[in-house]
């Protein structure tokens, strides 16, 4: 915008006159105001009248109506002992006063019933109609427009009602005329409004232990318990079964958490707890403490709670022990292993063989495992102590060793004992070393038992067998009578509670090998005095053959020539004259073929078997002697071989002729053993 036109206007006369007029007006007006020029009328008052009015105090008014914080309702009550809190905001229309929030048990429409604030009484505060007895709560003096808070500590015990009506007042502290808003009391709205609800502790009158339970089976605790506050929306309760007598009320769980909790129920009236017991688990009694909590996380009263006096209230934290049954142990049939004498290693043998004639051979071993659902340790075991013999659950075994064809039921009693085929545990050990005696010693190897989570232990048993134990080796009936059987073990295991397993036969057996052994009744054959050309009429020079192993036996026989200069080490002539084995008759040597032998002592010379000559290099002469297998320790089977000799006619030298015969034992056909 340009000022040039104004400047041009002000340069002319008209402009100047206008400007001057304006300036004069401004000055006049300014003077009027500055100097306060007053127009005075012609009428003047000669007196002043003072007026006054007393504005009455009004009671405060709600800005935010009272509410329970948090809301205390039938579905979310306040647990006894907890605090009910109300908040509200009010303002005083007079603008200068503070106020109290009063929560009363009853109401009134008249202020006169209220206990009003008295400004002349130090510490005066308003109160409900009837005073403190009818008051739930009262806030502190709160500034106008600020939020007031009033609290009430609910009572423990059942004396207090579950459902409690309240009325809220606000009263100011006016110094002249304090007021309360009796005409505008409030009970709040909805769940946060009146009434408030107090939840009392649930009733817990029975806590029942489960029936004795096997490991791995279901145990059930039952209870009689409920929340009897029927006004509330939920009367159900939850049962916790804890391993200790401590309950964490803050976290609503057994003290120590899951580790100390058997189980808990769902919410129900008269809840039950189902718990699958551990497997394995040592038998015995285990503490189990019951705790009831209602749906509002309030526990049943402890027996020591002074606010609950009824006897029926005493079940919280009581002990209804869990009893784990003692279960009979079992034998692990697939774990049997047999070891031959001298085998100290880990690999079992498939055949064990007696090696001591006419006596027991010691040092055979059988190992096996047994199992117990109560674990390999008893209830006294503790992880800190470790596993010792005193803590073993399976304490004893009875082991029978027998040939499989005998059958498990026929080798378990003393009367079944037969050294040929059955060695029962019950054979009296006092007769050890005799035919009636047998001793098996067993020890438990607890190194494999780590504790109450293991079920198995290993046993090692050492036992002897008599020399005549039936052999089961070979692959046909010629080799041994029982070639298609084996020797097995059966076991009864007993635990610390004196329960025993069934008599159980192991799946794995072992062969007993053939023990080919014999003994001669004589260590030489004395033919006596004979003249040249003379022969023994009968083959009656005896050599008794005793079967001292576990087979029947036959004999092979061969011999050296006899001569005065006999030398057993001087092979091949043995110090005797060289001659044709089949036809030679040297004058100072009696060839072997002039000896004969036969079974028994009544065969005539000439009807026996010619002795084979070792110098011939062929097979020895065979005698089908058929000594039976010895079946009695005190009666060794034997047969006689009768011998005779003829002094051939070409002998010229008189004197003592000696020689050497070899008795070679042969296992006879098994069909001839009995």
């Amino acid at each position: 915008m340009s000022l040039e036109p104004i400047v041009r206007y002000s340069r002319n006369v008209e402009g100047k006159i206008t400007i001057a007029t304006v300036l004069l007006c401004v000055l006049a007006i300014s003077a009027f105001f500055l100097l306060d020029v007053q127009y005075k009328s012609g009428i003047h008052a000669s007196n002043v009248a003072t007026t006054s009015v007393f504005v009455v105090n009004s009671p405060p008014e709600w800005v935010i109506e009272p509410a329970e914080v948090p809301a205390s309702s039938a579905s979310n009550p306040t647990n006894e002992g907890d605090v009910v809190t109300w908040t509200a905001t009010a303002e005083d229309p007079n603008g200068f006063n503070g106020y109290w929030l009063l929560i009363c048990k009853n109401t009134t429409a008249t202020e006169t019933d209220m206990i009003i604030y008295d400004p002349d009484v130090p510490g005066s505060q308003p109160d409900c109609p009837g005073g403190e007895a009818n008051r739930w709560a009262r806030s502190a003096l709160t500034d106008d427009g600020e939020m007031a808070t009033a609290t009430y500590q609910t009572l423990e015990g059942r004396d207090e009602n579950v459902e409690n009506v309240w009325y809220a007042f606000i009263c100011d502290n006016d110094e002249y005329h304090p007021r309360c808003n009796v005409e505008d009391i409030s009970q709040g709205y909805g769940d946060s409004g009146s009434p408030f609800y107090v939840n009392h502790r649930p009733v817990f009158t029975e806590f029942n232990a489960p029936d004795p339970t096997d490991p791995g089976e279901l145990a059930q605790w039952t209870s009689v318990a409920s929340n009897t506050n029927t006004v509330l929306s939920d009367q159900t309760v939850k049962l916790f079964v804890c391993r200790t007598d401590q309950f964490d009320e803050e976290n609503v769980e057994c003290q120590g958490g899951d580790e100390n909790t058997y189980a808990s129920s769902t919410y129900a009236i008269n809840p039950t707890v189902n718990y699958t017991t551990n497997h394995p688990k040592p038998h015995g009694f285990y503490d189990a403490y019951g705790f009831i909590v209602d749906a509002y996380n309030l526990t049943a009263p402890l027996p020591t709670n002074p606010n609950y006096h009824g006897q029926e209230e005493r079940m919280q934290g009581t002990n209804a022990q869990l009893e784990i049954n003692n279960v009979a142990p079992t034998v692990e049939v697939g774990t049997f292993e047999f070891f031959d004498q001298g085998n100290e290693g880990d690999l079992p043998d498939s055949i064990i063989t007696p090696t001591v004639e006419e006596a027991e051979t010691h040092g055979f071993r059988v190992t096996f495992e047994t199992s117990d659902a109560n674990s390999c340790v008893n209830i006294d075991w503790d992880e800190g102590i470790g596993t010792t013999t005193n803590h073993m659950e399976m304490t004893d075994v009875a082991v029978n060793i027998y040939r499989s064809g005998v059958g498990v039921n026929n080798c378990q009693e003393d009367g079944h004992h037969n050294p040929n085929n059955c060695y029962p545990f019950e054979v009296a050990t006092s007769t050890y070393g005799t035919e009636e005696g047998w001793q098996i010693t067993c020890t438990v190897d607890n190194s494999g038992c780590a504790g109450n989570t293991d079920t198995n232990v290993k046993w090692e048993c050492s036992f002897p067998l008599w020399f005549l134990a039936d052999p089961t080796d070979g692959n046909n009936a010629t080799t041994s009578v029982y070639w298609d059987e084996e020797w097995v073990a059966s076991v009864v295991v007993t635990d610390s509670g004196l329960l025993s397993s069934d008599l159980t036969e192991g799946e794995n057996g072992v062969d007993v090998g053939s023990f080919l052994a014999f003994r001669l009744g004589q260590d030489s054959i004395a033919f006596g005095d004979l003249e040249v050309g003379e022969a023994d009429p009968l083959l009656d020079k005896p050599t008794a053959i005793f079967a001292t192993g576990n087979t029947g036996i036959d004999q092979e026989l061969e011999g050296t020539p006899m001569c005065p200069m006999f030398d057993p080490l001087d092979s091949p002539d043995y110090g005797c004259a060289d001659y044709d084995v089949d036809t030679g008759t040297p004058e100072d040597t009696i060839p072997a073929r002039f000896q004969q032998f036969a079974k028994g002592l009544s065969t005539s010379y000439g009807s026996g078997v010619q002795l084979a000559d070792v110098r011939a290099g062929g097979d020895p002469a065979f005698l089908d002697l058929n000594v039976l297998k010895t079946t009695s320790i005190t009666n060794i089977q034997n047969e006689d071989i009768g011998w005779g000799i003829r002094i051939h006619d070409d002998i010229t030298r008189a004197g003592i002729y000696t020689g050497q015969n070899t008795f070679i034992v042969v296992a006879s056909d098994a069909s001839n053993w009995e």
Partner: protein
Amino acid sequence: MLVRGNPDSDLTASIEVNVPGADEWITIEPGEEVFLPKGERQVPIVVKILVPNKADFGDYKGTIRVRTQPADGEATGGGAVSIVLGARINVNLSVIDRVIREFEISSVKILDFNEGRKVWWLEYPGKMKFRMVLRNTGNVPVAPSKVTVDIYDSTGKKLLERTEHTNRIKKVDPFKTEEVFAELPSHLPPGNYRGEFVIYNGEKEVRSGNLSFNIRPAGTVAGDTGYGFMGLSLWHKTTIVGPIVLTLLLIFSLIFYFSKRSRLLFIKLIYSWKSVYRFPINRTKKCFVFVLRGFSRRKLSKD
């Protein structure tokens, strides 16, 4: 084992092998003369039989005789025939032209093992070690063809897992007894279990039964390293191998793309193949055209 009831003097045992046709296959250890010292009741000998590769098939029967002799040659009183003892062992060998693949299991055990572990998304199972004492009753090295275990809870009532061996089980030579192991994966947590096992020889079930065993928390069983990559499931293996393969393919593709020489080589390769398959096509075309022309010429001439 040479045994004697009264070892009251030194003896010498001579061992004679007489198995016609197979004498040379049989050796005696420590030798054909064995000293039996005074006081020793038992002296072991070992009879070894080594059948030659080209041995004739058939049965070989004979004997092994043991004869003893006093070491000092001392004989009994004069005028009597002294007696020395011996024993005869029958030998019966069969050399056959048939493979016999047979074995017996004399004992079984499932050893304690550590639970499996999880590394990121990969679940490595625990490695069950199934111990067997195997006796080879055949004439060729043999091992179980399959071992399966159904794992139940400790009460034996609830089936939890089925598993089969994953390793190559060591073969045992004929006539030997050895301890062998089958390894089976398991994803079960620590605890006590029962396993129902079956051991197979081919399709034939050799042995079955059930055993109790424990799975221990990780790291409890010393020396048990568990399964590695091969123990993972097929899917988990794929999640490892797949990205590696794809990455390699991508790398090679990029190399090829940016390498002119590679492209030229590729093109040459395509064209070289092209010539191979185009030749018969071209020839066929030419023949067809020739025939058509010939046909049309004939038609024209007729017309």
